[in-house]
């Protein structure tokens, strides 16, 4: 057994290399030493509300994942297990270390800690990491798999981990454009099968935008136009020389279509990376256009503009001089209004934290995803 000083270092954030077979024993010793209050002047409380299993394809990504996990651990104390795929095979066995993320609880006094296990493997051993992860899961708590890369839908490790997790978290902004459609389809199927809830941080990034769009139709003056919308124009910011990623825009249109009962009527592609197609609502045709817009700074959604036959328009668009602010403009016959809203891009930790709060499937996302996949697929 290690000396109390070594455990104190672990609770201070230092990783302690341990034998894979002894991980659970080492953690027990860590918390026992903490409970005996031998580790300093503050009582230490271990807290755990879920198992967070993260996959990182490289050491750099693992460092980033570790940083994000430490930021969410205050709100979601968990047993986190980071699997790191190494560049070359040093050993057939995974290497393990334990560490802890601690915060002083807001009421003062106690130090609330959650534990982290890092497993490093290379070569064929990566594919077998699930065998090491499985016995380390805290019983009876939800398992969230955060795949910090484009998920290999048919990969052995991925498939094995899907079997044990309740929620899969990915970020479609990381998907290679040439594979995005296929991967999104795979995720949609996973969601449809219902065995695992699927979260996409790229969808969560749209929360501010969705909120601002929804606000137009809260009051009766705006609500009367919602069922008659006939035009949706979305601009996606992209830098020179880079292909615009339309996924966010497709999610946004997919969300509108699924909430408002619009169905896809036809699709055509136009030049320059733009996409245009027609949907049908109960009131008639809805023309949709997504096109890239060249920018120098922030990529991602640039604007959305909704139009109705009577000339009413509703738009949210980034300010030219401050890309973290948007102009929110409702222009309706005999009225309307405008204001500027702050739209700070959420941190990855904030996005992940939001997903960890979810229990069960996000039906709204899944329906928006299904629509987005349809928009991508028809006409091919």
């Amino acid at each position, binding site marked *: 057994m290690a000396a109390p000083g070594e455990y104190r270092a672990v609770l201070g954030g230092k990783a302690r290399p341990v034998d894979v077979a002894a991980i659970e024993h080492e953690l027990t010793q860590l918390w026992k030493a903490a409970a005996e209050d031998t580790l300093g002047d503050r009582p230490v409380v271990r807290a755990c509300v879920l198992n967070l299993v993260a996959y990182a394809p490289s050491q750099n990504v693992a460092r980033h994942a570790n940083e994000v996990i430490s930021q969410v651990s205050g709100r979601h104390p968990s047993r986190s297990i980071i699997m790191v795929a190494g560049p070359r095979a040093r050993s057939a066995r995974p290497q393990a270390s334990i560490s802890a993320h601690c915060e002083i609880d807001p009421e003062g006094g106690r130090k609330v800690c959650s534990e982290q296990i890092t497993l490093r493997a290379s070569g064929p051993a990566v594919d077998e990491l699930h065998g090491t992860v499985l016995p380390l899961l805290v019983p009876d708590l939800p398992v969230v798999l955060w795949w910090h890369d484009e998920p290999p839908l048919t990969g052995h490790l991925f498939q094995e981990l899907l079997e044990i997790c309740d929620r899969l978290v990915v970020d479609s902004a990381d998907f290679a454009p040439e594979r995005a459609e296929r991967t999104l389809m795979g995720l949609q199927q996973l969601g449809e099968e219902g065995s695992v809830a699927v979260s996409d941080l790229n969808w969560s990034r749209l929360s501010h935008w969705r909120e601002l769009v929804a606000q137009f139709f809260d009051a009766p003056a705006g*609500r009367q136009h919602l069922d008659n919308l006939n035009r949706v124009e979305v601009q996606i910011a992209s830098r020179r020389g880079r292909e615009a990623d339309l996924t966010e825009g497709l999610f946004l249109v997919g969300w509108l279509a699924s909430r408002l009962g619009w169905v896809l009527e036809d699709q055509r592609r136009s030049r320059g990376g733009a996409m245009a197609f027609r949907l049908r609502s109960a009131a008639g045709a809805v023309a949709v256009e997504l096109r890239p817009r060249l920018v120098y700074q922030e990529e991602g959604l640039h604007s959305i503009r909704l139009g109705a036959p009577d000339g009413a328009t509703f738009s949210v668009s980034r300010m030219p001089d401050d890309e973290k602010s948007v102009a929110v403009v409702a222009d309706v016959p005999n009225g309307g209004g405008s204001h500027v809203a702050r739209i700070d891009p959420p941190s990855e930790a904030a996005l992940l934290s939001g997903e960890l709060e979810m229990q*069960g499937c996000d039906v*709204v996302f899944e329906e928006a995803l299904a629509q987005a996949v349809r928009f991508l697929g028809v006409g091919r």
Partner: protein
Amino acid sequence: MGAASATSGRDGGKMTVPERAENPLRVGMRSPRKPEPNTLVIFGATGDLTQRKLVPALYNLALEGLLPGEFAAVGFARRPKSHHHFRSDLKEAAAKHSRTRPLQILAWDGFASRLYYCRSEFGDPAGYRELAGSLEEIESKTGSRNRLYYLATPPTYYAEIAQRLGEAGLARNEGGWTRIIVEKPFGHDLASAVELNRILHGVFDEDQIYRIDHYLGKETVQNILVFRFANGIFEPIWNRRYVDHVQITVAESIGIEGRGAYYEQAGVLRDIVQNHAMQLLSLAAMEPPATFEPNAVRDEKVKVLRAVRPIRPEEAEDSTVRGQYQSSVISGESIIAYREEKDVVAGSSTETYLGLKLFVDNWRWAGVPFYIRAGKRLPKRVTEIAIVFRQPPLALFPTTDGSHLEPNVLSISIQPDEGISLKFGSKVPGPQADLRIRPVEMDFRYGTSFGFAAPDAYERLLLDAMLGDATLFTRRDEVEAAWAFVTSIIEGWARSKPPRFPNYEAGTWGPDEADDFMERDGRRWRRP
């Protein structure tokens, strides 16, 4: 509350997205719903409540992006001030009292640019005409005619302000909603509460009136309902068959903080028991509501208050124990007696401590006593509901010293350390032949489980009022039912001999009579 959800459990299959959302784009929205653009008018905008609670709460809502873009606020008070002076005073107050510090200047400036001031006496019709003009001007910029009035004045002005608003045509408007928040105390007895309700209803409909009891905005108070009705294991034992008695404690370590004139008229019965304690009682004792809609929840709460067995005036002395604190020294600091406080009558018989026993005469609680204890200058600030369970039917493990096993206690702590704990007996480790049992506590603390500070109660309640969600506000019949119970006790006390005050030292758990009061029933107060 009651927001449409679009998540489902894995086992239960996907649920149908609820149809009731008026705006279909709101379904499944994870960010808290923002209210429609509106203008808040605070009457008594230079007072303590505005400075300490309302403005810090509004600032924090703005900081978290929970206020609508076109939100504006107008301060209405008697002191002469410019808009600029008003903003500057509130900035100082927010910097001092906000739960998030330091003040973020950009966020404050954005918020403060929409703060305005209107000087007037509360009874002067000209002031209301000026207010109407200001609202028209603000609304021409914001494009919204939704209005929320907040009565943060001394209660003597409530009726007058409501009437003046009505006369000025400000109680309703065609282009938006109009609501009014009324602070406690709501009346000083049943007759005055009924009269205030009558006057308010002459101007506003019940669904426009939001009677605030800030206790209901506290996370743990809301959690009482979640704890009881979202967990399958507690409700089956939440009744007379398993519960021996319930203790509700609302203890404060501070004195009356310079509010002698008010406290002389109120006492702890009116100040704490009629509102906070009766609200806690109704939440702890209520039946499950049919839905989590405002009126469904409030229907069940009011049923509890109606089922409380009245304490007739002639029973008041036997069913209560009163106290008043005397001087003391706590941690080297001299504490003056209540009667020596500013604006308190020398021979005052106002109670600063109250112990009370009541029964809820319904199927669930028949015969189970509820003990309420509230007071000033008690050893610590603590609010809790403790459910004390019956002993096992058979003493299988005799104790060596002849003592009884401790009963199981489930305590719900409202403040300051919000959480829930369960006390149960456990074997003391060791090989002794005589098995020893000791009580141990299983603790759940909000701070350690969720690791972040809960929003202030006023933030939640202001937001709810703007959203039109009245679940956490008190309805007319609730207020009147609570006053009906309390007024009978006040009448009984008025007929009795004045109590021998002072009778407890500041910094103790009340008078000795309070312990005797419990011992008569073979019970004792918990030490929270």
